């Protein structure tokens, strides 16, 4: 059986950054069909369980399939006495196992994922991709963002970054990506995870843009 595939409807970069007391994940809402901007409202920042943010780039069908795998895991764990107990760190490792297993069957889930969340004071931000590569870091970016936005995130990152500062960093980085990546739209979502506030994923909103920067003045 020929199972090696290609991504069909794709989402571009997802960015993630830690701040003091939480993590933040951003992605736009475009689903591209090759170079065609086919779907304008695909939500690629999602919640898994009570404590975890999942951002996905790459194939959108595979992203949804992954969400179902996670949901099945959480369902098994649901008891009457306690909420699902998986920490973001555990879900990150679980996803890495799934993705590595699928790539080993030559049937990968074609995604790069950002996994973030807070549980019991442990602020976690990590990355998983279609080969099963996984790591944890203060900043994470997928796709084109790993070339263009990641250096900006690294430069901006501090231990004591506030939530408002982190939001500005992500919005600015998403704006740069919108200028330079041809598979974006300026309609994004930002998901925030904190110990106190749980998970809060914003409705999509538009980024202000300024194209005068590229116009030659005579």
């Amino acid at each position, binding site marked *: 059986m020929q199972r090696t595939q290609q991504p069909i409807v794709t989402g571009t970069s997802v960015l993630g950054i830690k701040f003091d007391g939480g993590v933040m994940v951003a992605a736009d809402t475009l689903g591209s069909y090759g170079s065609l901007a086919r779907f304008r409202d695909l939500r690629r920042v999602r919640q898994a369980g009570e404590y975890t943010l999942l951002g996905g780039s790459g194939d959108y069908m595979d992203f949804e399939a992954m969400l179902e795998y996670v949901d099945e895991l959480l369902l098994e764990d*649901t008891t009457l006495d306690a909420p699902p107990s998986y920490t973001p760190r555990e879900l990150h490792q679980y996803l890495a196992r799934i993705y590595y297993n699928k790539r080993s069957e030559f049937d990968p889930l074609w995604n790069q994922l950002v996994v973030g969340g807070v549980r019991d004071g442990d602020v976690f931000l990590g990355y998983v991709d279609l080969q099963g590569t996984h790591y944890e870091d203060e900043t994470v970016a997928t796709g084109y963002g790993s070339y263009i936005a990641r250096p900006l995130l690294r430069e901006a990152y501090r231990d004591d970054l506030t939530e408002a500062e982190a939001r500005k960093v992500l919005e600015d980085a998403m704006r740069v990506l919108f200028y330079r990546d041809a598979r974006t739209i300026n309609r994004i979502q930002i998901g925030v995870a904190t110990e106190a506030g749980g998970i809060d994923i914003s409705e999509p909103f538009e980024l202000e843009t300024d194209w005068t920067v590229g116009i030659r003045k005579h």
Partner: protein
Amino acid sequence: MSSIGTGYDLSSTTYSPDGRVFQVEYASKAVDNSGTAVGIRVSDGVVFGVEKLLISPMLLHGSNRRVSTIGRHIGVASSGLVADARALINRGNQEANAWKSTYGEEISVKVLTERLASFAQVYTLYGGVRPFGCALLLGSWTEAAGPQLYMIQPSGEAYGYFGVAVGKGKAACKTDIEKLDLESMTCEEAVVEIAKMIHSVHDSDKDKEYELELSWVCRASGGRHQLVPAELRDSALAIATAESSDDDSSSDDD
């Protein structure tokens, strides 16, 4: 019992001459001998209460639950053989998962009931198996369908109910339920009523201790099946015990 020694009760493949299947009736006996389970369908949800008889005072509180959940949205209260009930509930979870992965939405409690009833019925047909020694009460609440409550019997029969009781105290509980105005009642009120019912049918001379398990699926719980919050459960239990001790003192006066 007239069935014993006649040879008609040795297998569920054999009818008695008057058309009964005694193995199924024995299974129903297992249900009748267990702690009472009550389900009530009210305006904004379904509430379950179970009188869990404790076989030992050394059991951990909250262990061996007799209310459980299928998926996240269907509440199940069981009576009869706990292990049989668990097997049926596991099957229910498989059905719910299969439905979800095929259709992308949660299975309805009606469809689940039909499938589990058919599953239980098959166990009344063959010589190598015995019928399930349990009855299940299944309930859910959705915005579209509102509250729904069903009961599956060992025979494989299943019906929808406004209120239903099984187990030792079912007769008394049924009369109590019939007195309630279920249409206008809320889940919070139903919790108190169920606590009262179960407390009053508990026979403390024959059975030593019991634990009251209370759960609901309702608008307030977002259609998810959950244990009734501890404060509400405790206050309902307090009302139930206070009322029964009032009854005791008044009967002493007579």
